[in-house]
């Protein structure tokens, strides 16, 4: 996996909550046995009309966002199925980062991203950034006023800088393990296989109840 590097890119706004993986990549595209070729089908049902032509009203069909590398969406992005194809589609379209807001506080806090989508993202080098609702709203405002606006995403310093008349710098949290995996582009399987002696030792005394 390639290490995640600081970049500056166009922001595309998708103002919807609960964007599920069936929307990100509909089922008919899950039949592929490959890891590639999913980008052109990203958000297929929203992006394309019944006749196969792009829906001009959908955000990613607009000229200003075709080369976008940062997707900003509503909360609970990536909910639903475990299909990693969703992450592949987002990345293969050209996105390097998705931003979504968490909502509420304490025990009732609703995260920006669904759990499995988040896990799958780290494994593939896609950065998911959770910001507050107010911060995400401010990004939507900037992008609505000025489509084609850009931001710089810096994982090392954990900041997103929205470029405009004045730059808006937003900080984000990320757990240490995910950050290291992304920054170093770690191959998790190779890493785990370094623990092979520990796994073998564990298996000697572990009961799996297989007859």
């Amino acid at each position, binding site marked *: 996996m390639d290490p995640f590097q600081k970049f500056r890119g166009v922001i595309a706004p998708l103002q919807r909550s609960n964007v599920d993986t069936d929307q990100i990549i509909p*089922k008919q595209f899950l039949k592929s046995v490959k890891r590639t070729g999913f980008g052109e089908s990203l958000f297929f*049902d929203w992006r394309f009309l019944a006749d196969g032509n792009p829906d001009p009203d959908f955000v990613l069909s607009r000229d200003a966002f075709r080369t976008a590398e940062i997707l900003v969406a509503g909360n609970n992005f990536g*909910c639903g199925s*475990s299909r*990693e194809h969703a992450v592949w589609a987002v990345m293969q379209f050209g996105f390097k980062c998705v931003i979504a807001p968490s909502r509420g506080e304490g025990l009732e806090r609703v995260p920006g991203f669904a759990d499995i989508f988040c896990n799958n993202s780290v494994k593939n080098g896609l950065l998911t950034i959770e910001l507050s609702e107010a911060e995400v709203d401010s990004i939507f405002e900037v992008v609505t006023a000025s489509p084609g606006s850009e931001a710089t995403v810096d994982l090392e310093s954990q900041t997103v800088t929205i470029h405009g008349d004045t730059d808006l710098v937003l900080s984000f949290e990320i757990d*240490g393990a995910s950050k290291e995996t992304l920054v170093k582009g770690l191959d998790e399987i190779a890493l*785990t296989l370094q623990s092979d002696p520990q796994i073998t030792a*564990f298996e000697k005394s572990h009961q*799996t*109840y297989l007859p």
Partner: protein
Amino acid sequence: MAKTLFEKIWNRHIVEDFDDGTTLLYIDRHLVHEVTSPQAFEGLRLAGRAVRRPELTFATMDHNVPTTADRDTIRDPVSKAQMDALAVNCEDFGVQLYGLGHDRQGIVHIIGPDLGITLPGLTMVCGDSHTSTHGAFGTLAFGIGTSEVEHVLAAQTLRQKKPPTFRVTFTGSLCEGATAKDMVLKLIGMIGAAGGTGYVIEYSGDAIRDLSMEGRMTVCNMTIEAGARAGMIAPDEKTFEFISRIERPFAPRGAELERAIADWRTLPTDEGAEFDRELEIDASQIAPQVTWGTNPGMVIDVTGSIPNPEDVPGCTPGDVQKALDYMGLESGKAITDIPVDTVFIGSCTNARMEDLRRAAKILEGRKVANSVRLLVVPGSAEIRREAEEEGLDKVFTEAGAEWRFAGCSMCLGMNPDQLKPRERCASTSNRNFEGRQGKGGRTHLVSPEMAAVAAVEGHFVDIRDWMKE
């Protein structure tokens, strides 16, 4: 110190704790299906790696398989290629496959328990979000992506952050006509489609204890629809009876089973163990539920009507309006005034014997409304046989239903079973996402009873009133 069911299982499976806060967790059972595995096997090939414990790995074909009698001829060449790839991968890597035509083929989350693969106290994963189903046995079971599938194939472990715990206690007893499906839909409606994100939920309380293993599986199955990592229910006598009842090739037997049960009795959450979050729900107040929107949190009592966009907690008015536009519904319309075109009884949520029996009880001696197409899709080849032995197939076909072969079918429409645009479906499945059952299709999630009665009447009906008549 008092421990929860989850903590006890977690602790038993720690291979190594790392400084970054993650744990290498041992995985006891790995279920595999054709959709999320080909890239993982290919990854193994490219890296020259083997499957570490093929005897703990079990595969089936379920998502793509046709459910019609001519199912052996797969007309979609892309589906066929994916199924063929699984067959080759299982052959090459020594994995047991319950493929199309095998007498134990079926939906992955239905054959796991039926074959005795699913047992209390184990960790279990599958490249499928509804793996949470297996938690009904007191198993820590969760869905993973393809990269993690490859990781488990190669190393029989996963690197995990320990999730927080959430106990949901259903007190009291369900009223007649309300089911396990209504309990879990009610919960999702209360906490929202992301309300459980990241948690491992343990279900407890009298109403959970009263459920059959099938009902418990339904509840745990849909835990992911609240965003939670896993759902669990402590094993009890019902669990042990399920495992012991009939021949299950991968369950222990005899003295070995006795020893296992003695161990499994130590698993339930200790008195005084603490959860990160708790919620209590009075089961006696749960009415039959019907979803009206495009995520499972958009759900209401059958006696209700379509809400105003401003009145849906946890959703913005804009999101609700988008959902209503997609569903072709207007605020204020009574749920019981909504007509249905198709009824789907099936999926890993509700395609077990108990579900089919309950639906058949309603359909017996009745006819499906002229305007309605009813599909009944058993969860496994074994369930299909058992249902036929009981004559349920006759009940369904005489009522005018299509009696199909086992697979995921119209739950996600990867096979030819799909809704047409704007077709409205009462479905016993688990997701009412846009396009889930077919592009433009409109899904309302309900229990098997509510689906069957909607098929007869041609619109949603409060089954409690219907049973009185």
